């Protein structure tokens, strides 16, 4: 019962945030200097085309009505036509988004798993050389922008060591039918293991470049929360009552220590999506970020709105999931939320 209340509250909040976001995007798209219609149809189009277009885009109506039209269209998944691809923005998003999501999820897994391993090693061997090495590494990870990691990785692992390919999602020799849009899954569905491996190899460098920052951040947080909790009375108390060391480590310590790590994960995932914008450029990754980037550089308003709203939705959904997991881990949050504060 508690949990249901919590979920409902969280979902309501998410919907509200998305509404606000749509308002911001709409506002931003209307404050753009210059006439959006002129931009859309080109400078040589005759005036009547422009007028027709204005009518079509409801630009002659009052601003609230414009927003209403825009919002209803957006709700139906209609973001208009992209200037760059001359196709519906929704169609473009459908095509490019899975590549970005695949990359983001892959890097999320890398960062989370890596952070838990490094963080607990660091806490367990606190103040030894293991801990110090991990701390120095996570410091560097935090301060280095992901596009710098991307360049260094390409240079070292792709060009110099030749371990990984530099660009794209898969070797062109493979012709994998698109089913889910996830190259790894599609290649598995096609039963082509070599293609699957090739897709994974293509994923590793860009995913690592994106994962480095979050990994470092999460490792640092895991370390400090584990070290803190290790000194807590309830650990000493459990030991005093004869609870086995293995159980203490794997449950009594791990569960409360996971809470801050998982909490920060939502933000880190967002940072990862943002960084994907730059990393996809460097790796020539045919994803939504690269699409969004080219839309931004050519002031393709419809595409920009669509892309940002998509990322907003992903971010909000991820955060709801993260909150639900955290609430699952931490009864205090669940109880407080259910009480209604």
């Amino acid at each position, binding site marked *: 019962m508690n949990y249901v209340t919590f979920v409902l509250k969280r979902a309501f909040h998410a919907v509200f945030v998305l509404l606000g976001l749509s308002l911001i995007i709409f506002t931003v798209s209307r404050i753009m200097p210059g006439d959006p219609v002129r931009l859309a149809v080109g400078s040589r189009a005759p005036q009547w085309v422009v007028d027709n277009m204005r009518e079509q885009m409801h630009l002659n109506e009052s601003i609230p009505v414009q927003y209403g039209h825009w919002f209803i269209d957006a709700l139906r998944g209609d973001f208009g036509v992209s200037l760059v691809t001359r196709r519906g923005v929704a169609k473009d998003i459908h095509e490019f988004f899975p590549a970005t999501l695949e990359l983001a999820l892959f890097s999320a897994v890398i960062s989370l798993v890596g952070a838990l391993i490094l963080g607990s090693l660091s806490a367990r061997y606190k103040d030894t050389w293991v801990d110090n090495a991990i701390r120095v590494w996570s410091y560097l990870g935090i301060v280095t922008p992901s596009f710098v990691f991307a360049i260094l990785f390409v240079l070292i692992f792709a060009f110099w060591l030749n371990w990984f390919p530099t660009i794209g999602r898969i070797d062109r020799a493979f012709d994998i039918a698109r089913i889910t849009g996830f190259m790894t899954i599609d290649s598995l569905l096609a039963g082509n293991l070599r293609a699957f491996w090739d897709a994974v190899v293509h994923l590793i460098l860009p995913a690592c470049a994106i994962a480095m920052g979050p990994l470092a951040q999460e490792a640092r947080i895991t370390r400090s929360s584990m070290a803190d909790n290790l000194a807590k009375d309830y650990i000493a108390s459990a030991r005093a009552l004869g609870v086995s060391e293995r159980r203490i480590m794997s449950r009594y310590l791990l569960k409360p220590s996971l809470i801050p790590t998982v909490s920060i994960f939502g933000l880190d995932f967002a940072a990862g999506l943002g960084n994907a*914008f730059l990393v996809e450029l460097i790796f020539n990754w045919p994803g939504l970020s690269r699409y969004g980037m080219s839309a931004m550089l050519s002031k393709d308003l419809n595409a920009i709105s669509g892309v940002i709203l998509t*990322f907003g939705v992903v971010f909000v959904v991820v955060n709801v999931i993260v909150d639900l997991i955290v609430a699952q881990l931490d009864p205090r949050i669940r109880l407080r939320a259910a009480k209604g504060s």
Partner: protein
Amino acid sequence: MKRRDLDSYKDLNDPVQLAGLKRDSRRENRARNWYKFTRNPLSMVGLITVLTIVVLAVFAPFIAPYPEHVKPFTDFKNASRPPSAEHWFGTDEIGRDILSRVIFGFRFSLMMGLVVLVIVVPIGVLLGLLAGYYQNSWVDSLIMRTTDVFLAVPPLILALAIASILQPNLFNAMLAVCLTWWPWYTRLVYGVTSGLRNEFFVTSAEVTGARLPHILFREILPNCVSPIFTKMSLDMGWVIILGASLSFVGLGVQPPRPGLGTMVSGGTRYLPDQWWISVFPALAIVVLVLGFNLLGDGLRDLFAAEDS
């Protein structure tokens, strides 16, 4: 009771008197903590790095070996030279000294960080104070729900979108970063303020008829100072990264001006053979951000020790 009466009233159980005493001991603490700060090697490395870079940036025309390479300049004879005694960081594809350009590039990065924080911090802090003070009212909901919305998009994406819609230049890049960054300060200050809202010293100020600005800025704000300063020092690093990222995609510092991000992206075309063209500016970003982070962590420890 008149203010003068209060001052002459000596009783250690009186919180007003205690506050006065606390200020002296706080100064003492600060002196001791500064000593502690200087004893922490990492914080000192951070401070020295930041100071060095600031000096380099301020006196760039006198320090950079080839200051003329920052202006439109070509020297194809010396193009794409690897690092050497003459050109420590090598030269780029049109023969400009990369070290000189990096030194000038620090100017843009520091300016970015400074301008953004100078604009963002007062706005964010004021909104946070208001929302925290008028807790659970429409002011609170309006401000805090707005921050929720702004924080619902990854900052880099929002900044990219805003910057792309405006003209691509440094000013608009700063504007875009400002628009994405204020909610963090609002949240930070809101957290502290709402915790202090019902504390005795706030209530007593209200009861004695203090005006709103006094309560906000003289009673509550001093309690937020240490987290704000810590965050500012850490944020210098993040804002610099954000600015470099915008420059990297061509939405910040415009060539031929030497933005660090601009230089990195310009150099990617010449990977892997002329790696130095983008690697050195990239490392410069890392060093700069590292400096601010070490400094910020040092400050955080300092303030944490002071609080306890």
